[in-house]
């Protein structure tokens, strides 16, 4: 594939060829991602609809066929693109426009180091886990700047809630990741997946089970999704930080939120569920068939499980009260992760964690 591209780009100077190939790779990652984001909104409305015994969107289709409403996300995107962007009076115009970009940028940039297979990766940097952690922590700027620049009390309240929440849950998230990198002995996402090979019982979700649960719940809190969506909290503060946004600026916030959801789902699959490794690997009968081969499909299937959980949570749980969110983050998750880090350290000292303690 790469060779074919190189031969097609022979007419460019050497340095531009490299640049062109990187740009093509970026498009190959981002285009499916944006389509996935669009259809995740559709999946969300359908799944929550069925959970609440409704049908969900079922009218907009293609070429006169309704096709279960599959055209809905595209219709939504076109509608939002052509709506007017209303800038509230007294708003900080520059920051008001920049805020959605600031939440979108990190959400997309983090995908640079996500491995999709042994060789399928845009930038195989050593410290990719740290890079992802750093970039996901930048997403909060979009939210707080949006809240402040809108010149609205509701937006500001939402932004303040979100800032405190994200900073709190980042600590638990970071500790959970420390456990992963201790067990894997590496901070490279590809090597973390390799360290889990052997079968589904060697995936880190087994020896690091508490960290797995804490990481995913912190991920839900970091993306401001229900039941941690007090930053939006439509029953109290209308829509929180993006209450003043309209048209494409509002759509960009939504894109960023869903891109972050997919990112968290993907990272959980990579770090705790063996990434692209097959669950049938190392089993007696199917272990030698094609089912046991590592593949991108396994990774996407695992990520989809977590995406479904995101939607399920939203349909099932009532919103947390603010003080309970803080209590869960600081008084439950952080002590639990610290205790489990000690356990992991002790097990590693004893020579365990490959297939657990030997």
């Amino acid at each position: 594939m790469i060779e074919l591209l190189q031969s097609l780009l022979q007419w460019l100077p050497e340095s531009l060829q490299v640049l062109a190939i990187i740009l093509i790779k970026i498009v190959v990652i981002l285009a499916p991602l944006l389509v996935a984001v669009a259809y995740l909104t559709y999946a969300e409305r359908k799944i929550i609809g069925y959970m609440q015994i409704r049908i969900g969107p079922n009218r907009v289709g293609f070429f006169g066929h309704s096709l279960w409403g599959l055209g809905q996300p595209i219709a939504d995107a076109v509608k939002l693109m052509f709506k007017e962007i209303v800038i509230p009076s007294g708003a900080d115009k520059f920051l008001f426009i920049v805020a959605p970009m600031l939440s979108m940028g990190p959400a997309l940039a983090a995908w640079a180091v996500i491995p999709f297979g042994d060789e399928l990766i845009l930038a195989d940097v050593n410290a990719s886990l740290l890079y992802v952690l750093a970039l996901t922590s930048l997403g909060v700027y979009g939210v707080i700047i949006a809240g402040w620049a809108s010149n609205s009390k509701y937006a500001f309240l939402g932004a303040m809630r979100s800032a405190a929440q994200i900073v709190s849950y980042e600590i638990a998230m970071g500790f959970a990741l420390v456990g992963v990198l201790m067990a894997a002995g590496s901070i490279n996402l590809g090597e973390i997946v390799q360290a889990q090979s052997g079968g589904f019982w060697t995936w880190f979700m087994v020896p690091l089970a508490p960290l797995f649960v804490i990481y995913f719940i912190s991920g839900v809190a970091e993306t401001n999704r229900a039941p941690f969506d007090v930053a939006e909290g439509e029953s109290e503060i209308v829509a929180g930080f993006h209450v003043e946004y309209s048209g494409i600026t509002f759509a960009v916030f939504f894109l960023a939120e869903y891109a972050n959801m997919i990112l968290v789902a993907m990272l959980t699959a990579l770090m705790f569920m063996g990434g692209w490794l097959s669950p049938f690997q190392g089993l007696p009968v199917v272990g030698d068939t094609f089912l046991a081969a590592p593949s991108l499909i396994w990774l996407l299937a695992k990520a989809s499980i977590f995406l479904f959980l995101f939607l399920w949570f939203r349909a099932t749980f009532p919103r947390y009260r603010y003080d309970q969110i803080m209590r869960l983050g600081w008084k439950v998750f952080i002590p639990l992760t610290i205790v489990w880090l000690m356990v992991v350290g002790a097990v590693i000292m004893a020579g365990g964690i490959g297939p657990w303690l030997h």
Partner: protein
Amino acid sequence: MSFEQILFYVFSSFLVLSAGAVVTLRNPVHSALALVLAFFNSAALWMMLEAEFLAITLVLVYVGAVMVLFLFVVMMLDINIARMREGFAQLLPIGIVVAVLMFGVMYQVYNGDRFAPGDMPVPTPHAADYENTRELGLQLYTTYVFPFELAAVVLLLAIVAAIALTLRRREGTKYQAPEKQVVTRREDRVRLVKVPSEARK
């Protein structure tokens, strides 16, 4: 000029410009955001010196956490800009003295026998399999383990002190104890009272 040099000049000019903006912008929120940009650019410069761990940690800790809380506070405060500018002429002489002193100190450092540009060897680029994080970890946890632990204790002390200074117990506040709520049984809360029926008078 090589590509790396171009990158260096781009990042360092952004760094100088944003550092200037921190002190010249009128709106404190804009100043804080300029500081974020300055951190980001210095992280990029560190990255170019192959100090990837430090660069990413700078973004993670300072940009991702410290500056968020900074912004939080700056946005909440109602800062009167006109009042802050009042004493400008009065404080100017002191400011000039401080600036001259700082300039003198930095001049001394850069012309001393340790940090002069000529004494700094150009770092040799490492091979692609060089891991800055691993090297740093090996150094910190072997050679410098005691200073490292000492620094950790000092930081812990700061955390405990900050909490102890701001913690005050007020009498009569009501709060939930979830651990008690969870273990509550029906018998603790509900009392069935048998009231004998009486004849109507």
